[in-house]
């Protein structure tokens, strides 16, 4: 019975960890998307502008 509870907890923990990783990946993806869209909108020449 104890073993069964332990394995259930392990599965639950593994699922929780995977969900956390998924959220982290989505947030990272959003950061990349916002960065790339900014570059596309402003244009590559922004780095060559006169300061």
């Amino acid at each position, binding site marked *: 019975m104890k073993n069964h509870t332990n394995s259930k907890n392990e599965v*639950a923990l593994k*699922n*929780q960890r*995977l*969900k956390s990783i998924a959220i982290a990946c989505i947030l990272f993806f*959003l950061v990349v*998307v916002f960065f*790339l*869209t900014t570059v*596309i909108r402003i244009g590559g020449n922004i780095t060559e502008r006169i300061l």
Partner: protein
Amino acid sequence: MTDQISTVNDFYSLMKPRVMSLVIFTALVGIVMSPAYIHPFTAFIALLCIATGAGASGVLNMWYDADIDKKMKRTINRPIPLGLIPRSEAFTFGIVMSFGSVFVMGILVNWYAAAFLAITIFFYIVIYTIWLKRRTPQNIVIGGAAGAFPPVIGWLASSGSLSIEPIILFLIIFMWTPAHFWALALDISDDYKKVGIPMMPNTAGSKSTRRQILVYAIITSFVALSPFFVNMASVYYLISILLLDFIFIFLSCKLYYTDTIELQKKLAKKLFIYSIFYLFLIFAILLIEAIVKSLI
């Protein structure tokens, strides 16, 4: 504890991935057919936002309909009735995705497309799911507008303005929805009856539903021809659609004139599957023609 049993996959299936795929596809056609230039990356973001918005609508629909989903054979295996995801968690997930998709669309693509995406989500959840679905057999006729908006959003994401073309794309899906959905409702009318949803076969009877399916199939067939007459598509499109229309009307006619219930259910299922194939092909031909036109 239930929320810890749920996996990433459960959340994914909560978003109705099959419905989402058709939404993405029709939105893509809207983007490609638009004459305005859109950077491929921006187009990708627009599609992502539309997909997320559609997914959010699916999640909120399952959140609201959890009580009937657990009683219907077709929906009993969804994550909420199975107890894998708590309703409250599904609600939060749906709301976050709804607002997220609209704001990302607004900031990164344009606010016209974002406004239409917001209207679509609102229409599907509030007008269709909460208001109409349990009250009137016309639920799917009016609610069908939500499923017809994606190509319009795609067009708006690309061009930022409306014209006759996206309205025709909207009308094709809008007119197609009743025949498509009532074919399914005929097949599983007992399921809907059990939970008290006033679907057409349960309120107006099988004969009346079959007649209305035929009427909507004929209307859809005419609307599907219209892209040719407004110079959106070529004569190849016209010929293909005439053939597809013929099969669509033929199956609807056959369903209308069939008397035995068992055979009706069998034909209804066949019509339901064909209707998906029919809509997919209409948009696929339009997409191919738009791509070829842009290459020439």
